């Protein structure tokens, strides 16, 4: 008998070690939620985004359900208050008849801006959903099966990535802009998935080599089950973060297309269209220019901050890290970090094509 073995028993039971007993175990989801909740900027952004959405949806209503605002976005009452100046008073607070003023045709500008917000949210969610589903599926299949499936899918991705998003979007907008925001957004969603596909593929390539995948395969799980039940939940961080950032660029893409007259057509309006239409009249009616811009910034900025907060929550290694305090960090983390980087350096760098903010807006 070797005395060493009896002196240090392996800590299998866990109950022998006092430290682990005192601390309640947290699931991965709880940890992520807690880290996200600690990020005040992201929380504030969620609240702001929610309020803007609430304002936009309740004021005009959805479909047959009427909202609480008295004017519709297409009604044209006569101009009041000296040619349609805003009646909004901040102190004492009162909305008045036309708080954001009136369009030069007399249309209530508050209603038009609210309609623009509704359309922007609709566009962003449709584009985001389609891009997320398509990107995840393409990336997952390519990364899981590798070989010729990977080759074909990735060449397809390259094909779309080569053309700038704004160019594809413009051609699509020329064709489908008049068909309403839903159709336009569906087609735009079909060009925004490429960055996500590349990132998901990279994630799958490394995850499929892990032991738990082998275990599932040995247990007889089908490919579909391994992909969606075993690997995909482990890659969800990349998907969530990237699709949030895709949404932030989607709202700017929609605004840019509307600005180029390639997006939503009147009588329907979008925030980008309102800016485009009124930018020439800045001198006489600056309020027509400020409001839609303000709301675009609010929405895009909130989504960007939420995306950033999610990234910090899912991948805490990069942040809250001070170069001067490297002393108490252990080396293996850095080594792993370096390893994942070098295996897919070009993929990650290219991934910013559609995932990164600020895309399609120069």
């Amino acid at each position: 008998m070797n005395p060493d073995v009896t002196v240090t028993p392996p800590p299998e039971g866990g109950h022998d070690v006092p430290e682990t007993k005192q601390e309640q175990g947290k699931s991965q989801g709880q940890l992520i939620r807690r880290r996200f909740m600690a990020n005040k900027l992201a929380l504030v952004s969620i609240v702001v985004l929610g309020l803007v959405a609430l304002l936009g949806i309740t004021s005009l209503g959805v479909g047959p359900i009427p909202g609480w605002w008295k004017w519709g976005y297409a009604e044209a009452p006569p101009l009041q208050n000296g040619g349609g100046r805003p009646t909004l008073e901040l102190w004492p607070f009162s909305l008045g008849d036309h708080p954001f003023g009136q369009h030069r045709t007399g249309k209530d500008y508050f209603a038009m801006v609210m309609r623009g917000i509704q359309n922007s949210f609709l566009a962003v969610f449709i584009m985001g959903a389609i891009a997320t589903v398509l990107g995840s599926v393409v990336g997952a299949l390519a990364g899981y099966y590798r070989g010729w499936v990977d080759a074909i899918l990735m060449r397809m991705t390259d094909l779309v990535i080569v053309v700038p998003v704004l160019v594809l979007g413009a051609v699509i907008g020329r064709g489908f802009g008049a068909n309403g925001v839903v159709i336009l957004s569906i087609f735009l969603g079909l060009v925004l998935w490429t960055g996500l596909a590349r990132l998901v593929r990279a994630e799958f390539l490394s995850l499929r080599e892990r032991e738990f995948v082998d275990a599932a395969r040995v247990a007889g799980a089908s490919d579909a089950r391994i992909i969606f039940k075993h690997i995909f939940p482990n890659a969800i961080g990349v998907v969530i973060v990237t699709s949030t950032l895709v949404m932030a660029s989607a709202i700017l893409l929609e605004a840019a297309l509307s600005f180029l007259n390639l997006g939503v057509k009147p009588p329907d309006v979008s925030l980008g269209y309102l800016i485009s239409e009124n930018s020439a009249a800045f001198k006489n009616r600056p309020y027509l220019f400020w409001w839609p811009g303000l709301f675009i910034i609010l929405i895009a900025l909130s989504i960007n901050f939420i995306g950033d907060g999610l990234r910090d929550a899912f991948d805490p290694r990069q942040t809250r890290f001070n170069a001067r305090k490297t002393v108490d960090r252990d080396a293996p983390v850095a080594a792993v970090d370096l390893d994942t980087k070098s295996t897919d350096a070009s993929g990650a760098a290219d991934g910013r094509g559609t995932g990164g903010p600020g895309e399609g807006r120069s």
Partner: protein
Amino acid sequence: MAAFVFRRLLASVLILLGASFLVYMMMAFTLDPLRDLRESRSATRDIQMADRIARLDLNSPWIVRYFDWLRGAASCVAPIGPLECDLGLNRSGQSVNSLLAGALGSTLRLVTVSTVAAWVVGITVGIVSALRQNSGFDYGVTFTAFLFFSLPSFWVAVLMKEFVALPVNAFFEDPSLPWWAYVLVFVVFGTIMQSALAGDRRRRLIVFAGAGAVATGLLALLVTTQWFLDPGFGYVGVVLMAAVIGGLTMVVLAGTKHRGAQITAGVTAVLGVVSYPLVQIPFNNAPSIGLILGLAVAAIAVGMAVGWLAGGYDRGMQMRLGAIIAFLIGAVILLDRFMQAWAPYLNYTPVQARSGPVPTVGSSTPLLDGSFWVEGLDLGVSLLLPTFALVLVSIATYSRYTRAGMIDVLGQDYIRTARAKGLPERVVVVRHAFRNSLIPLATIVATDIGALLGGAVITEKVFSIPGMGALFTDSLLRDDPNPVMAFFLVVAAFAILFNFIADMSYAVLDPRVRSH
């Protein structure tokens, strides 16, 4: 390696083919080149229609037209074989090749300056913000970067016309500033400098007051002497700038105690000052782009030679130092020459005819017909606002990527080693961390250049610049397929080319990638 390059090139050509087919197909289904004629009531409508159908070969199926187009376009990408590069005709019968050439020139002028400016400012801001991580400066930069990501560029552009161009033009009508402008300059400059330099509260206060006072004082001096109406550095100014440039570059690259660096910086700066009156002779007699480029190369060569001749144990660094100082002083002298053309420029009739020296549309003043320097100045002034609008957005991107790369590098083991062996922080940052933090940026820069040749679609539209982006949107709105295809071809070909260069440069710069 050769096999890899060949495979990549082959794949690129196939991707270009596939993408061009995709775009051509999309346009065949979405664009209707006869739309305007169908709606027209002109008496010659049918003739015009038949004319256009014949010109664009609209009776053939689109797939036949695609291969027709491809036959002409293929030789533009790879000039082999007997065919000539031919991108077809536009709707009204002009050759797309010549349209493209003009647009490409306009776009290159616009994006070159803004790209270089965005690199310099973005990388500097990113590095300072990484070094002061989680400080007020870092949070300020981060917030600003996110704000710029979220701003629609057309919105910014319109605001810029209103709040930059108009006040500047008003200033040249009546060169005086209100009191709050001075306060603003004081506060903004002081705040930025104190948060960038950091330190304890006392030091921050001193920096704030000092930097603010210097900036405000300088501004007041320049305004009261009416310097802005006839600007220029003069001999004293060039000497001062040379001293500042030489000193700062030396401190950043080599610190204050390096003997060879002191000699290099001093000699290069003196040579720069001495050359100032000398280069005015060719500048005035035979100005051209070639002359400027030649002088720039000569300046860099002289700087490197000085660094080499200074001797010592670190000649490579001295040569870099000399080259940078020489280049910067050369830039100052060139800027001074352009400034000398400012007063004559203001007196030209086409300039006086508009509401002020800074125009809000167009990429040059028509009917100007001035000297080389006046024409150059006009180009610079016309592109001022669009460049500014583009730079704002790009700075945000570059500063974020630089910051992330720098933080990543600063956390690595070899940086800890460098600190542990007692190197000063400046050496750790400049010589160990900075270079490696630029590696991931190389990829981004290369991809960006490729994308930029497509022009800044929105910026060009807002400022009415006849560049690539304008060619694209105008043609698209007129249902004109061939110019759109030409635009696509240029953008996609350059995107693929620069992606390729980015991958190659990654392999060259980062040995870890090569081993895989």
